[in-house]
């Protein structure tokens, strides 16, 4: 179905606004309507521009975690609707596979959930293994799904050593393709990440997307 430029721009604008407002129901409904007349790649472009804008507003302390999280959930819901259409067109782009979890004896999930949601919203395939995860759970899942990255979260100073343990165990394994590691959480610093041999560190969710993207491009270079 053909629509005129003005109607198309209006519909894409409404989708973007629904993403920014963090409204998954409305944004999905609008995307479904739009798919009747607009190419999925064009819709995806709008989603990506708007989620990037949300990230910038978050970094500038204009939006906060609930808004960021809800926008990422809306983006993810729309991506799920677009996915089959993009596959049909052969333009589906997956950034990479990430196994994500909070380490053993730590049940903090805020950072992990936000990172997972924002990674998904940015095209990563995320396997969230939950909280209180022993090393083997990370490693088994990473091997099972042939992950590119293991992302570990720790919010307690008492559980930070678990990260070192997972990285050590990973070094002792010989996966079919190399698996990179990322770390984050309130007490985690770049210094700590370097000390335990993690490949990447970020203090926030959008930083995690940048780090994951960089790691993958370096890996594939």
């Amino acid at each position: 179905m053909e629509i005129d430029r003005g109607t198309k721009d209006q519909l894409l604008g409404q989708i973007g606004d629904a993403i920014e407002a963090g409204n998954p129901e409305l944004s999905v409904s609008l995307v479904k309507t739009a798919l009747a007349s607009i190419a999925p790649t064009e819709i995806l472009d709008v989603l990506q521009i708007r989620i990037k804008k949300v990230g910038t507003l978050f970094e500038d302390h204009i939006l906060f975690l609930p808004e960021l999280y809800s926008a990422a959930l809306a983006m993810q819901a729309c991506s799920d609707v677009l996915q089959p259409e993009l596959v049909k067109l052969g333009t589906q782009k997956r950034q990479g596979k990430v196994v994500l979890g909070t380490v053993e004896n730590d049940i903090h999930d805020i950072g992990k959930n936000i990172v997972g949601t924002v990674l998904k919203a940015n095209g990563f395939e995320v396997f969230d293994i939950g909280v209180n995860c022993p090393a083997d759970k990370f490693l088994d899942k990473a091997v099972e799904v042939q992950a590119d990255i293991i992302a570990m979260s720790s919010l307690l100073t008492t559980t930070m050593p678990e990260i070192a343990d997972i990285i050590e165990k990973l070094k002792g394994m010989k996966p079919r393709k190399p698996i990179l590691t990322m770390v984050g959480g309130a007490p985690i610093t770049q210094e700590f990440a370097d000390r335990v041999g993690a490949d990447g560190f970020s203090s926030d969710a959008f930083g995690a997307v940048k780090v994951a993207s960089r790691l993958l491009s370096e890996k594939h270079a």
Partner: protein
Amino acid sequence: MDQMTARERYKAFIEGRMPDRVPIDPMLESIFPMAQIGKSAATYYRDSDACAEGSVETWRRYGFDIIQLGCSLPQYLELLGGTWSCPEDGYPMAGDPVFKSVEDIERAEPKDVRKSPAFRVIIDAISKVRDQVGDEALVCCRCPGTFNLMRHLIGTDLMFRSLAQNGELIEKAADFACDLLIDAGKAYAEAGAEIVWYPDACSSTAFISPEHYEKYAMSRHARFFTAMKKEGLITAYHPDGNEYGILCQVKSIPNIDIYHMSQEVDMGIVRAVYGKNARLYGNLGGHTCLLMKTPDEIEKETRDIIKKAGAYGKFVMSPAINMPGRTPPENLRAMIEAAKKYGRYPIK
């Protein structure tokens, strides 16, 4: 040489008189005091004798001024039929959230905290600590903040989505959490606590906007502190993250005696904004300084903080949040000794 007991020093701080030196509160949780008596961290939450013994022994051994005790967030779930557990050498962990909807909250009938086994341990421990220290020191109880507790009651996902879209659930859950905390504070006061420390990271601007803070958090914080003042408790508020975004709002909440700042803020700026009569706690980095740095570095940072905020006698030297449990003992000593060395009044 100290000229006051810990209790006299803290009372002077509260009453606006000049203490002999800056009081010190290391804000200890379970792991460090239990290690001092050779017990696992989990023992703190199941054995009131050990909890009291570890707390008092650590206080005597290190020579600080406040003894702090309290249940942690996961134990509140037990009051509502939820679960929690504690690794032998770690911090307590919460089970699943207990509420999924407004209706769940309206149906819930919390038990009296005094009848909860987990709370009974801490309530009894407070009582035992009071018996052991007598008039030498004050006991502070921990009541984790309203939004912190709400996050455990309804879960992170639902809390964030509701803040963005469904105010009713937030209103109900926040009221419920606040009521529960008031009940805990009263029980601790009955047992002999004289100070209540109330940290609330989840309502800080590290999590939510200043608009949401004003809309949902401030009235609950005010209600909590007003209820605690009625119990005769000294009230301490720890906004716990990005305080710059809400400095003025925090100052306008009634019935707060003490403001405890996190490490993101400069204590000199807080002193300038809040004035020389404000009672301040702060703000040595927990994991970034006490846990990771050397005693020499800790001494220097402690001295700098005292210089910025301690000159008027209305200041307690403390970490920016509870001291990490695995902090090397020599690092805790470095903070305490530096506070005694550089915090002696008059401060030059």
